[in-house]
């Protein structure tokens, strides 16, 4: 009996050691330790032994069983580790193969600039407004201190539909609508398409986009205008941007100014974008003309305000390095996808 136990022990240990996978190992376990396993069978045969032999053999069998259990556990771990290693090896991939994704589309550069500008002014408490593009001369000219004999109303510059309906040549019309319909304090910007009778070329387009802004409140001064635009320029074009005011003339503002910003491409050293001058003409602005306030029912003795406006395409072109304005309206996907 003892010999038989020893024989089973040796045979099973060898088999465990040789087991190639978990399945084999499981079979071996059943073969020796299962209900009908060799060792179990041996235990069942113990009844045939003498009373003296029985505890000795019993002990021996139990010892062998414990040993085998331990071996099995050990082997199981080893095989599991091996299996994992093998899996990891087969599952190795080339991470540089092409990805699988829904390709992203793109937002047009003009929209990108407008959104950026909107965010800046929203943060300063401005609302965003828009109005009709096909607009009354009343809103584009009359109310803006641009009388009938003013050159800005020329048919050479403005698209007419009837004598008093035109394609707006500036988004200032939206400011008039705002001033007529609400009371100060007014803080707004109005981005949108405007129309001028310019033939299409690398720097002109009969349709382009403007963002105009308006503030009307008590005690608004020209230094506030300068401060606001400086803040805008820094946020939009970079923290180091400087702003410069030059006197100018617009019928709807007085005093009026043109504002230049230090070139955001070369930082003011002079480059192709700023034509070597270090400054880029960015916008027109000024204090709302008292006649305009009066026209809109706002008392210029009580309130003052400022207004400004700039072209979006110019900024987009300078910022993205686009040299021909026509690209913005040609809509070649190879162009669009770059943004």
């Amino acid at each position: 009996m003892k010999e038989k136990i020893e024989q089973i022990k040796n045979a099973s240990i060898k088999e465990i050691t040789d087991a190639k996978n978990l399945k084999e190992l499981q079979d071996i376990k059943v073969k020796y330790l299962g209900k009908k396993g060799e060792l179990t069978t041996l235990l069942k045969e113990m009844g045939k032994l003498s009373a003296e032999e029985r505890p000795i053999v019993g002990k021996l069998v139990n010892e062998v069983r414990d040993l085998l259990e331990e071996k099995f556990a050990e082997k199981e771990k080893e095989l599991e580790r091996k299996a994992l290693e093998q899996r990891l090896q087969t599952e190795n991939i080339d991470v540089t193969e092409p990805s699988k994704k829904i390709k992203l589309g793109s937002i047009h550069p003009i929209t990108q600039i407008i959104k950026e500008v909107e965010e800046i002014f929203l943060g300063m408490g401005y609302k965003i407004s828009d109005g009709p593009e096909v607009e009354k001369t009343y809103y584009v000219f009359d109310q803006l201190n641009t009388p009938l004999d003013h050159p800005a109303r020329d048919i050479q510059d403005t698209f007419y539909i009837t004598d008093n309906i035109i394609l707006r040549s500036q988004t200032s019309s939206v400011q008039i609508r705002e001033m007529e319909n609400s009371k100060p304090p007014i803080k707004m910007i109005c981005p949108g398409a405007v129309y001028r009778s310019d033939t299409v070329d690398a720097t002109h387009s009969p349709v382009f986009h403007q963002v105009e802004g308006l503030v009307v409140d008590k005690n608004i001064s020209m230094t506030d205008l300068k401060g606001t635009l400086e803040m805008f320029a820094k946020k939009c074009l970079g923290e180091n941007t400087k702003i410069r005011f030059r006197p100018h003339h617009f019928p709807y503002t007085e005093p009026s100014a043109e504002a230049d910003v230090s070139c955001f491409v070369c930082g003011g050293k002079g480059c192709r974008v700023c034509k070597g001058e270090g400054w880029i003409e960015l916008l027109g602005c000024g204090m709302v003309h008292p006649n305009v306030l009066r026209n809109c029912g706002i008392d210029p003795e009580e309130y003052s305000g400022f207004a400004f406006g700039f072209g979006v395409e110019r900024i987009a072109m300078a910022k993205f390095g686009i040299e021909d304005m026509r690209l913005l309206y040609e809509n070649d996907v190879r162009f669009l996808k770059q943004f």
Partner: protein
Amino acid sequence: MKASREWLEEYSDIDVNTIELGDKLTMAGQKVETIEQTGKDIKNVVVGKILEIEKHQDSDHLLVTKVDVGDEILQIVTGAPNIQVGDIVPIAKDGADLPNDVHIKTGLLRGVSSCGMMCSVGELGIGVQDYPNQIENGIMILQRDKEGIKAISDIDFNTKLGKDIVEVLELQEDIIEFEITPNRPDCLSIEGLGRETAVTLNKTFKNPRKDLDEIGKNVQDKEEIEGLKVDIEAPDLCYRYIARLVKNVKIGPSPKWLVRRLKACGMRSINNIVDITNYVMLELGQPMHAFDIESIEGKHITVRRAKDGEKITTLDEVERELNSDDLVISDTKKAVAIAGVMGGLNSEIEADTKTVVFESAVFYKGAVRKTSKKVGLRTESSSRFEKGLSPENALRAVNRAIQLVELLGAGEAIPGKIDKYPTVQKINKVKLEPEKINQLLGTNISKEEMIKILESLEIKVENDIAISPYFRQDIEQRADLAEEIARFYGYDKLETTLMKAETTDGIKTKEQKIQDKILETLQNNGLSEIYTYGFINEKELDQSNIAPEIKKLSICLTNPLNDDYKYMRPSTIPSMLATIKTNINKKNKDAHLFDISRRYQNIGGKVEQGEVPEQETILTIGMYGGEIDFYTLKGLMENILEQISVSHYDIQKETKNHSYHPGRCANLMVGKDIIATLGEVHPEVLMNYEITERVYLAELNITKVVKYARSNKKYVEVPKFPAVERDIAIIVDEEIEVGQIEKIITKKAKKLLENIELFDIYRDEKIGKNKKSLAYNLKFRDKNKTLQDEEINNMMDSIINELTTQVGAELRK
């Protein structure tokens, strides 16, 4: 307006270089466009005379010359064919500099030494227009005696050999070109710019024409001079008309100094009398005109409105037709000039003119502008008049012209003037309120400083009233004074402050937020945004099969840029199709595009009633290429609507929108409102555009959809009780739409149906011809209890029953 530094120096000392001067004037409000400096880059170029010309031994086209440059004889090799022995030419000697960074050195040309170069007009940086007898591509011939050629008529270049060319030709000139804003017609003169220069540089304004004020007082008014009379018939269009006469006129060339100044300002010399009128215009800003008195019939000048259809041939020899909006200067028979625009050929100064009438008048700016635009003539004169000139200045100008006539010895002034002045110029007076000006500017400028600035501009301040000089009609109210003060206080000295104002909301409107979401969704779904023009032509509308009832809503421009941009689009489809076509032409194999823009529809004839027309914001999607079909587009639309929380919409087949494929188009409806149309482009439309691929198109009316978007989302509890799922397959006729089936199921299942999914569509002859099998997965759930099998079984039975009765569905076993 061009001004030479030399001329400006007559008005103000200038102690900075011209570039710096330009910068300072720009910063003070007279914006400098360009600065041209001629002669500056030319060094060591002298006058030389060609003594010998021989052929080069080793070249067919090179010539070897000997040139006398005063103190020596130089050998120069040249390739220019236009020279002859005896010609006097400009010689760039060894070490000479020429414009555009050209430097001349002694060298060998095919083995022959050449000690310099002969120069062309271009190489000296000057233009042939100033030297009409010179050629563009050849050596400048300063003098060729046998043909009588001379670059400058009154110089004998034989006496100038070896002299510096810059001095001899007076090439050194700094010319500044200004952009003059329309409120400053006074700066369309050297005098005005000179005054701005003096104030800008903080110098004394020298006022060289001060004598004109005194002269003005001494010229007697007369009703008639030498039989000439003047009447203004249209005082609303003519504020003042002054005439002075000059007899025994000697027409001839102008002196060099005058020609030079005219040239610097971009004007050509004609003859002494005409040059005087132009000179006065440049100097004082008042356009003038000179008539031959013999051409004025009846010796009676009338300023009147033209007759409708009246014709006049102007000095440029073009016949112009006028009407009663136009003002003319007329004699008893005919118009002799279009007032303020151009003189008539019939009264031109001729070489034999003996008596000249100088006209100095001021016309209503609006009328001059209108006439000038209408006849298509924009002259130095009209561009000044249309800004609004000062009638006071007109008198100074005519007296200055007489002064110049005497100075030039061009004739004898006849004493006295005819001066019709129906509307005396009003002098502007504005109260000076320093505190309010400081408030507006955000500055702290003392009253004394303000007065100092204003007085330097000749705006007098008396008892706190600012009185403008005659030449500043633009200063009408406080803001105008503020600008003058700010300009010379310095815009660059204005601080940057942030306003201390009431807090305001910076929030977007619902429509703006919805647009942002749409933009984001489309970008995330792989579409690229485009920008299109709102213009359109009729052909594009037809090509896109736009319905006649939409087409007729197009808005027509009266002055389109060209025929392609004649209308404002009533539909965005043609713009999108044109873009698709562009991309196909560029061989882009796919393009998935969208455009958020307006369409313009003249509904109810609003435009004719003087009202703004309908202009809705439309999202237009256009796609071709890649693995897309109708359902891709539908999914995209569903995603957008989900993003903007529009949920209660139906999809309905649309067969009558002829821009779309009749079998592959649908409308998205909220109630009876069409919020979107989507589908494949009609094959006929594609043929019109010569597109051979399938193109998918959708239009979503953003303006409309805003009102259906829920802005508040609410949390619904995650279900606690389990769901029960059932699959059914039914066979129906092909023409039954799945939407119809889903509606029946949804209606029957009421609230218990949580989800319905069509997971298979199967067509086979075994099922039957024109039949399809639809397999659905239905998911039921009661949020208050666990559903029992029996309940669902009954539900399924009744659903199947309903499907059988309504659409003849047959359960597939």
